[in-house]
Every structure is written in structure tokens, then in C-alpha cells.
């Protein structure tokens, strides 16, 4: 296990290097930050002056070299938009995205695990069909639409929650439900199929033939094994969520990574895009590692040393 963790951590360096290169090229070939910074009445001369002042007239490889040397000292450069160091701007968004990600995952797990198990246990019943139908529907509905509908019904019509922004617990409810139900739709189907596979196995039959109560068979013997794929998808979804839910954060004016990235891409704010992608990539690697470790906790037979 130790070697596995060590090896994974070592892989981070080349992966991050390749990511910075790809993002650097993509940001530079897709547009000119100076054009986005200046007002629409700016002349060609104004653009040239600012391009030179920001060092954007140098060859691309020189700019990348400067960027990399600064990066090695932990400096992603200054945000064109905010005029401040990029990394602190990105890091200060993390708590908001973590908060939303955690709440959404909680909503997803609270829906998916019980309904998935129940659906598997009552296979082919009306309830199972109903859950399957709702899951397909949940997956098919785009999150921005769900978000806007929730705002119009729950916040505007009923007045039960605030419409948008970040504040106390009440501000978290609508965006967490919007994101959580989308994930739950996928997760419910996964829990169900995983559970079905497990309860068809011999050791479950043995447990039942011993005369154990169904409740104990399912909860004690089947659930633990059925959770392995669920942990995988939870890990993957978590990285997506923490990396910023671009659409939902914009709909709910949630000041997290998602909104930051959308704004940075729109304004070609190179340093913010680089720092955001770097932080997200790092998180993806670490969360994947944590997921692998969680597998091991759930199923001691899984070994990583070889």
C-alpha cells in the first residue's frame, strides 16, 4: 500500500506538467486577453501598447518558459482581471465549492443508497419500475433547468428559501438539491445493479439459508460489497463537484470555483485558468488516491502492492 501511494504521488509531477502545457496552449490559441480587457472603443494602438506592457507580444515559448519558472516558485502570475496573484484567488473559492460539493453528495447518498437497495430487493416490482423511471428522468433533466424551476417554485412562489447567493444553511438547500438529485439519479441505478449482483451470490444464499433475517442479510452481508462501485462514482463525482459545477454555480450565483472558471475563460484570464486547472488536477489525483484507499477499507482483499 505504501509503495502504491508513493508511486501515485510521484506521477503527479509529469501529469501536472502536461496539464499546464495543454492549458497554456489552449488559452493562447483561443483568444487575446487584451481584446477582452479594453473597452470596445479601444484602437489598434491601444491594444498594441497594452499587449507590450503585459509581455504578451513575446514568442509563446518564451512566455511559457517564464510561466514555468515562476510556477516552480509557486507563482501562477497575476490575474489580468483582478490584478492580484492568481493562486490565492483560486484557493479562497475552495471552501464555497467544498461546501456545495459536500451538501450535494449528502443529498445524493441519502436518496441513492436507500432507494437503490430497496429497488434491488424489490426487483421488478412497481416500486422498482417507478424508481428506474424517476432515475432516467433525473438524469435527463439538465441541471440548469432543475435549478431555475426550483428557484421559481420553492423560492419565488413558496418563499421557503433564498433565491441565490451564499450565506447560512438555507442558501445551500436549492443548489445542493439541484446537484444532488442529478448525481442521485445515476447513483441509484448503480447501487441497484451492484446490489442485484451481490444478492445473487452464493454467500448471500448461504446467509439466508442459515435463517438470518433479510434485514441482516442485506445490511450486514450485501451492502458492504455493493458499496465498492458506489465509492468509485462518489469519488469521481466529488472531483467534478469540487472542481466547480459551472452551470449550477452560475444559476445560483454561488461564489465557488465554477463561477470563477467561467468568468476567467470568458475574459481569457490566463493565470486564473492555469491556477484553477492546476488545483483541480491536484485534487482529482488526491481524491482518486483516497478512493483507492477507501476500496481497501471496504474490501481487505484488494491489494495495491504488486
Amino acid at each position: 500500500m505504501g509503495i502504491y501511494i508513493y508511486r501515485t504521488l510521484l506521477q503527479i509531477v509529469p501529469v501536472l506538467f502536461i496539464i499546464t502545457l495543454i492549458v497554456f496552449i489552449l488559452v493562447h490559441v483561443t483568444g487575446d486577453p487584451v481584446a477582452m480587457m479594453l473597452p470596445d472603443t479601444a484602437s489598434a494602438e491601444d491594444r498594441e501598447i497594452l499587449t507590450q506592457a503585459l509581455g504578451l507580444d513575446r514568442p509563446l515559448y518564451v512566455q511559457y518558459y517564464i510561466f514555468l519558472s515562476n510556477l516552480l516558485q509557486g507563482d501562477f502570475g497575476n490575474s489580468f482581471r483582478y490584478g492580484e496573484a492568481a493562486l490565492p484567488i483560486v484557493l479562497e473559492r475552495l471552501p464555497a465549492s467544498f461546501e456545495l460539493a459536500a451538501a450535494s453528495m449528502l443529498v445524493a447518498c441519502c436518496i441513492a443508497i436507500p432507494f437503490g437497495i430497496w429497488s434491488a430487493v424489490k426487483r421488478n416490482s412497481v416500486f422498482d419500475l417507478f424508481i428506474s423511471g424517476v432515475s432516467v428522468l433525473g438524469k435527463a433533466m439538465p441541471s440548469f433547468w432543475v435549478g431555475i424551476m426550483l428557484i421559481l417554485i420553492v423560492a419565488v412562489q413558496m418563499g421557503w428559501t433564498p433565491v441565490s447567493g451564499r450565506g447560512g444553511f438555507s442558501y445551500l438547500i436549492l443548489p445542493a438539491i439541484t446537484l444532488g438529485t442529478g448525481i442521485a439519479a445515476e447513483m441509484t441505478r448503480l447501487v441497484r445493479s451492484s446490489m442485484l449482483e451481490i444478492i445473487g451470490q452464493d454467500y448471500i444464499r448461504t446467509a439466508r439459508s442459515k435463517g438470518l433475517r433479510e434485514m441482516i442479510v442485506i445490511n450486514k452481508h450485501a451492502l458492504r460489497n455493493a458499496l465498492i462501485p458506489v465509492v468509485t462514482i462518489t469519488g469521481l463525482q466529488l472531483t467534478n463537484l469540487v472542481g466547480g459545477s459551472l452551470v449550477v454555480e452560475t444559476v445560483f450565483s454561488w461564489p465557488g470555483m465554477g463561477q470563477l472558471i467561467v468568468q476567467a475563460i470568458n475574459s481569457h484570464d490566463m493565470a486564473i485558468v492555469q491556477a484553477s486547472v492546476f488545483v483541480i488536477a491536484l485534487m482529482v489525483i488526491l481524491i482518486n488516491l483516497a478512493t483507492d484507499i477507501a476500496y481497501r477499507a471496504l474490501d481487505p482483499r484488494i491489494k495495491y502492492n504488486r
Partner: protein
Amino acid sequence: MKQLRHISIVWFAFILIATGCSGGTSGSKEEGAQQEKVLTIGNTIDNVTFDIHNHGNTQTESIHVNIFEYLVKKDGDDPRKKLPGLAVSWERTDDLTWRFKLKEGVKFHNGDPFTAADVKFTLERVAKDKSLVDYSSYSNIDQVNVIDEFTVDVITKEPDPILLARLSRISSGILPAAYFEKVGVKGFMDDPVGTGPYKFSKWIKDDRIELVKNTDYHGEKPNWDRVVFRTIPESTTRISELLTGSIDIAVIIPPGDIQRVKDSGSTYYVDKESARVQSLLVRQTPGTVTENPKVREAIELAIDKKAVIDNVLGGAGVPTQEAIGPGILGHSPELFNTDIYNVERAKQLLAEAGYPDGVELTLSSPASTKEVAETLAAYLTEASFKVNLEILEQTQYKQRDNSNTFKELALQGKGNSMFEAPLQLEIFITENAAGQTDYSNKEVDELLKAAATNLNDEERAEQYERAQAILAQDRPRIFLYQNKFNYGVNNRIDFTPRTDEMFYADDIKLKEDE
């Protein structure tokens, strides 16, 4: 089950920690402090920066005008009329020198006294540092001389008839020289200081900026205890916030939502003509079909501008044939609010130009004006043009614009933060138009170059009016409509929009106070 319980506990702890660490916002405070007078405004984008010299964004300026003050202030209805701000009087002492007498007894939010040294520092910083975004608007300022503690001379490189317009906008908010030099840009960004009626309190990026009343303000006592500017990019969300009373004013109401705001019972709708004019850039490069003046005229006659405004913009515009609107020196009333739509004449002109069966042309538009572009294409098709519609993402559009690679037509909006003609007319001077529209008219060149340094307003107005009359015939751009900008407002608020789109919090009142 035990595992499941563990996972649930871990999640629950995680969310509690995350929620607890969030730093929160003013939600609870807002509920707890009901006695406070709070004004909340919903913008579409966040404050760009507190470095006032390093942006060109109107919504950001609309926040800043409450913190920083200009030497001269634009009138809300007539932006050319200048009112005293931090300067109590001003005069031009020669063609290159403007003398300003400053208000005495003014203090910055940190307690520093406001003096001529602060004016010198502020204006020379933006006029000399080429890396600042707003540099080009101030580069005509050569130096600022301190005559005494409350008198300054602003010396320009060339005679500058629009200096007062420069000094009443974005980068002219006076900064505290000593404090700025002490804390640097970074320190200033964290705790910006001005002389305005409201002081900076906090900024949660992409969420909100909060200002609090400056109890030591040198003018009338500020009207609100707190002013909050929220960032709500999604229009449905912004309007929902307005309808639930969480914000008092929402900017930019899309046409589809105007009726909702009018009918809600708790809100009302207001709009105002802006200085922004939407136009079709028309290439006159030899070899293009639009090189022929008859084709250009046919394009203008084929478009029912009024119908575009009514059906696509929900009425938020005025049809025009000129680059600048009312209130700007050089405005030509005979070219404004006109209706010259005539599809039959357009077809006839096209036939006369040698295209009886129509002609193919490409119309490029940014995605933000997709609906307008589609409607224009439909009108042009009716007049037997064959239109290739090219809808481009914003950055791609800007890149094409900067590299002058549009084909025959491109849909463009041009704003005017100074409310002065040069910003929207000097693009037609031969050197500036080269590669873009390739328009060239010697008389227009002479008129515009002479007007740029003409200190006689009467003559200058005539020069611009004459240039506009020629441009309306030559059509290097086909001007479509002057945009109106609009707001949804809570019934408890008395709000009259300003032409310059600024939110001076003290001009916005609670109806119950009146």
C-alpha cells in the same frame, strides 16, 4: 450497516465543517439588523478591481462612484453638463492648461486630508503607466502641476476639448497619494480608500461588495447605512431575487421578463437611452459587393429597425442613422428616430447595382446579439440578399474584429463612456478605417481631425454634424438603433436611471422617506 453509518457520519461532519468554515455572508446579519437602511443592487458581473485605472467596466464604475469622487461630476440627465465634485471651480487658462480649484476640508476614509498632491498622483499615474488598461484615455495629459494646496493645473499635450469628460469618468476618482504609495496596489485592493459618501466594508468575489456609510462625509449626510452590490449573472435568478424583495434594483431585464416585472405588483420597470449604438460594420474594400454604394443603401432600406426594436428588444431602443445620440455634442436630430424602411426600393437599388437576382453576403455577429442578427438576416433575405449568418463566441468575435477579418457585414455595439463624439467617430478617419471598413473620405478626415483639437464648442458641433451627414450617405457603418438599458425596481424605492448607468446611492431614495 456499520460502514454505512460511518460514511454518513463522516459526510455529516464534513458538511458541518464546510458550512462552519464558510465565512458566511451577510444573510444572518441582514436579518438581524432590520433597523439598518440597506440598499441592495443586483449587477450581472462582479467588481473587476479596485485599481480604478486598470479596467474599462461600467458596472464596476457604478460601484466605485460611491467610494471615489471625481473633480467634476456628470449631470444624471445631461452628461455633457458638468457639476462640481472635488473641484469647486475650473477654467481654461490657455489652449493647453486647465486650472482647478479644489474643495477644502475634505478627508479620505482613512483620515488623510485631500489636497492637490492627490490629484497630481492620480492623474499622472494613469497618464504615464502604459500597462494600465485606461492609459489611452488619459495619455493626452502631459503633467499635473500643484500650484498650491488646493489648486492644480492640468497640462495637456494637445488642446483637449473633452478633458472635462475624461475627468468625470472611470479613472478619475481621486486616490489618496500617501496611502496608495505606502500600501501599494495589493494593499489598496484589500482596503480601498476614497473620499466618497460610502466606505468599503467587504468584498466576497463573485458574490457581493458591501459599502457602509461614511459618517465624516464632507457633503450631505449619506442616505443609506449600507449599500450592497450583488453579482447575479443569470437573468432568471436576478429577476427572482427582485421579485422576492431580496434586491431593490436589478440591472438588464431581458425582453421576455419585462412584463413579469411590470405585473408583479411589488416591482416596477424603468429604462433609459444609453450612449451605446448598435450598427452594421460595412466593408468597402475594393472587390467586395458592399463596395457599391447602392448595395449599402439597399441593405439599410431592407431593415425595419423599428420592428427589430419592438420584437426582439422588447422596445428597448430608438432607431437611428447616426453614430452618437442625443446629449452628445454633434448629435444630428434629423438622423435620429427615423424610419426609412422600404423593401421595394431596396430590391430596386440592388437591381440597379447589377444584382437583380440578389447577391450573397456574410453577416457576422457575437453570440450575445444572435437574435438581432437572425432578424436582420431575415429582412435582408426578403430584399433578395442571400445571407450567410456567422454567429461567433465573444472572444472569437473580438479576435476577428481586431484582426480585421470580417467579410461584408458585422453587427457591433459601440459604447461611449465619455459622452463625446470622438470615441464613436474617429474610427472613420482613413488611417483608422484601413483594413476594417476601408472607408476613406477626405472631407470626413479633415472635419474629424479639426474637431478633435477645436476648443470652440459651436464650431466643433458643426464639424461633427457635417461629418455625420456624410457618413449617413457613405454608410461605412449602417447605424441601427440606440440601445436603451433597463432596470427592475422594488416599489419601496424611488429610482431614476442616469444616462451614464451609474448608481449614486444617495440619488436613490426610500419612498417612505420622501
